[in-house]
């Protein structure tokens, strides 16, 4: 559990960090909260030659409500996400995820940018941001660019982030009236990765029918998945009874479901359906109250 030797540089600003990345190239890895990278290094599964520590770039730690959007800086800790009033009103599912992610030590150190950039298929935010929608902004030597959240994750531990780029911000559309979101995580123990994580964002019309529905899952496959068949099953219908059952039944349609000795695929599929139904009910209740 002792990592191999590495060099360490600390960046005081985004520009400085970009300069370090340009200088060291593939030898460098960014260090934010360190709660994914350092364990990999201790297990000698990762051995970067240089760590560029961006953890003290305070300008990247913020939560702001801006013109119908919620903007969260990449270095915002999970704890700050969990506590922020703006998150609770605009994107409640993010706060749900932040409150069950790891343990208090992880939540105090780990950052939303680190989690989105690491793109662990079992990471909780992976499902939440897909369900909420929105964009990720990254900076490189050539300037800034924005990526739609549906295009962010490209595979297991792989994102649209290019070599030499730094993730700056996640931006979600803020919840409108009669809109609600939820994240439910089913884990063996507190602080574990989930067996299933389900995020649901629902908008309801005055008649109680869904005007919008986004559903996404983490921990079920080799990357977070949008459940578009389930979303379609809810479209224009009240989120109850048969509509919920039909949506849950197809929630993993077309997904290659992860299978391991502690959570076989058939159970995981069943669990995803149960948890989806429960998440839809909770999101609907929140939407009605919003």
């Amino acid at each position, binding site marked *: 559990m002792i990592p191999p*030797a590495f060099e360490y540089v600390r960046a005081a600003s985004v520009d400085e960090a970009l300069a370090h990345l340009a200088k060291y190239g593939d030898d460098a890895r960014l260090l934010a909260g360190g709660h994914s990278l350092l364990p990999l290094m201790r297990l*000698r599964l990762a051995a970067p030659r240089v760590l560029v520590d961006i953890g003290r770039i305070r300008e990247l730690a913020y939560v702001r409500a801006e013109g119908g959007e919620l903007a969260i800086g990449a270095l915002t800790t999970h704890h700050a996400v969990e506590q922020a009033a703006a998150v609770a009103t605009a994107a409640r599912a993010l706060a749900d995820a932040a409150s069950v992610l790891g343990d208090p030590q992880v939540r105090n150190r780990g950052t939303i940018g680190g989690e989105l950039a690491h793109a662990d298929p079992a990471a909780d935010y992976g499902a939440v941001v897909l369900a909420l929608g929105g964009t990720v902004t990254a900076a490189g030597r050539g300037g800034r660019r924005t990526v739609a959240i549906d295009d962010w994750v490209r595979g297991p531990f792989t994102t649209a982030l290019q070599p030499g780029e730094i993730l700056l911000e996640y931006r979600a559309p803020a919840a409108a009236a009669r809109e609600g979101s939820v994240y439910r995580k*089913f884990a063996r123990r507190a602080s574990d990765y989930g067996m299933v994580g389900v995020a649901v964002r629902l908008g309801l019309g005055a008649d109680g029918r869904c005007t919008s529905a986004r559903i996404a899952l983490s921990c079920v496959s080799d990357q977070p998945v949008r459940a578009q068949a389930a979303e379609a099953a809810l479209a224009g219908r009240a989120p109850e009874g048969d509509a919920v059952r039909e949506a849950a039944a197809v929630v993993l349609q077309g997904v290659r479901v992860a299978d391991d000795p502690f959570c076989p695929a058939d159970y995981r599929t069943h669990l995803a359906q149960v948890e989806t139904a429960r998440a839809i009910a909770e999101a609907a209740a929140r939407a009605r109250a919003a």
Partner: protein
Amino acid sequence: MAAVIGQPLKRREDPRLITGSATYTDDVRLPGMLQAAFVRSPHAPARIRSVDASAARALPGVVGIFTHEDLADFWKAPLPCAWGAYPLLKNPAHWPLAKGVARHVGDPVAIVVADSRAAVHDAIQQVRVDYEPLPAVVDLDAAVAPGSPRVHEDLADNISFTFDHKTDGVDAAFARADHVVRRRLRQQRLVPNAIEPRAVVADYRRADGQLTVWAATQIPHLLKIFSSGLLGLPEQRVRVIAPEVGGGFGSKLQVYPEDIATMAAAIHLGRPVRWTMDRREEFTSTHHGREGVMDVEAAFTRGGEMTAMRVNWLSDMGAYNMLNGPFVPILGFLVLPGPYRNRELEAHIKGVFTNKTPTDAYRGAGRPEATYLLERLMDLAAAELGLDPVDVRRRNLIRHDEIPFTTATGMTYDAGDYHATLDLALKAIDYAGLRREQASRRQAGGKLLGVGFSTYVEACGLAPSRATSSSAYGAHLYESALVRVQQSGAVTVITGSSPHGQGHETTLSQIVADRMGIPVDSVEVLHGDTQNTPIGLGTYGSRSLVVGGQAVVQACTRVQDKMRLIAAHKLECRPEDVAFGDGRLFVQGAPTRGVAFAEIAATANLGSHAGMPEGMEPGLEATAYFSPENFSFPAGTHVCVAEVDPETGRVRIRRYLAVDDVGVVVNPLIAEGQVHGGVVQAIAQALFEDLPYDADGQPLGASLMEYAVPTSMDVPDIESAFFVTPSPSNAIGAKGIGETGTIAGTPAVVNAVIDALAHLGVRDIDMPLTPPRVWRAIREAGTGGSSRPFAESGEGGRSA
């Protein structure tokens, strides 16, 4: 002065432990100290064709890399097994570093020594070992089947030992039985996971051949004796110090390969060497606990009375016999009759070698396995006979007026009231109310409710010499104490036992303060250094109070007898009339005639000896050894109330109540802590923990990320109540508290879950009862798929 026994005093150990100012083995720093790490086999098993250390040796800071052949001159004997004298035990040589063949993932192949931890961890990655993987023996049934590959090629099969026992009336009882319950019950493999990883520092002084060892151990004296023997060093030249030790649960009741290899490297290099284990190594290189398969059948009358029991038990030894590994199921055998009246028992135990990490004692050591079997049987019998599980237990529990009661395994229960603890528990939980709620929930749908019981008795106070000698165990399991009254009246107690979290310093002080009538704070308790403690056997098997405490009492008594003589001389009374209390010695019946405790202390120590009886030796000190006549028998009733979500299979424990008769409770705060910790480990086995292996002998989920040690968020509040019948085995009246939780708790939890699902037809779920397994059991119950055939016990090898 208020009674000291029974006071919930805070542990005096805690301030230094909680503030991080205590010294553990890994905190020891010596000039010139080197760091060791081990190259371990990634295969199970594999022939070692060659080891190429040239690249590693060239790295900066690397001092030495040694294989078995390099250090073979340093070890004079293989690692010990305390049951070596048992005639039916096969004990293949187990060397500190693999000789020719590595037999399990994690088996140490080479020790690397460097000048820093970073350097040594870089170096172990560069040691190139050419392995030839061999077929692995993993499954227990397959291991004992004819034609199985062998773990030890020089043995005819994979049987480490056989143990057979049969009482005269078993066959007749089965022939008469109204009903026979048959089951195959499994114990999964558990990883002890003490919070402090194992560690050893070895310092060899060439000038005089002195080896000083700091070790995270439960048994400093045994480690010293074995180390001197294994390394061929004079016993007086070996000193073992157990500084603070952060938990063990049996995992530090061992003489490990790494201990001896580190010592050999230190002797070879003439420099101090430290080895501290990584947490990941815990999963493959610290001994594991429990794994086994038990085929059981039990004869019952229609009314639920058990009349005979047969058990075939395959107990997984892993790749080698460890210090007590083979004896663990034997300890389980001793308590197989449990608190029940049935005296007809047939048991056949086989220790089985497999290509997995060796097993040995883990909190409870055999007794949890036996209790699980018995308590599951009680619930299965109730279900199959249509009776209430409480009624079945009542029908079978030995009554208070039947004690002393001698069991089918020769145990004589000497104190206890098993019905009384059950009554207390039932009253506390409102059993009738829970059954009503269970019925209404089954009607309503949603979460289901179950109630699980475990009425248990276990054997502590390891161990009476007649038991160890009659079972060919290689040691008397006595304990020792030295009590010294100093000049000021302060008292030093030196115990031969070796705490690693139990709070000996507090508890033993309470015993001495109580007997001597002095403040608890004036008593200090020392332990753990073989240079200045009387020979003791260590701390395990809930023995430190029951056996070690009695040694303290005896040493105390001897010192007090001498103090009485001095006081009688001063007070001009008879010694037998002198009493102790309030810091004084006084004439019984005339309390104003007295003398201060401190004055007697001064008189005997640095005083002019005026006031000493003519011809008496100075000094106030005595050493005592206690070898118990009988085990002690903690008993009680644990009840678990569990909710099961039938949609997800998730279990939530709503209530957990432990009513334990552990005899006289010296410190209720510490005793409750032991119950809490033990019950959490029981819940862990029932619901969370498992280290399975694949067919190639690779452990699955061998890290804390996957091996699900429950967190504080995953366990309920635990209610603990004590019911007291004093043990006659020692003057304190204590029975032992360290293992009751793991022994009683696991079946209570499993019984609760299965009780919740009983109406669906679920009768068995293999541990741990994870959500996927519970869900699957519910799903399969509808199709009648959950019962398994009883594996017939078959052929010869049995003794009558």
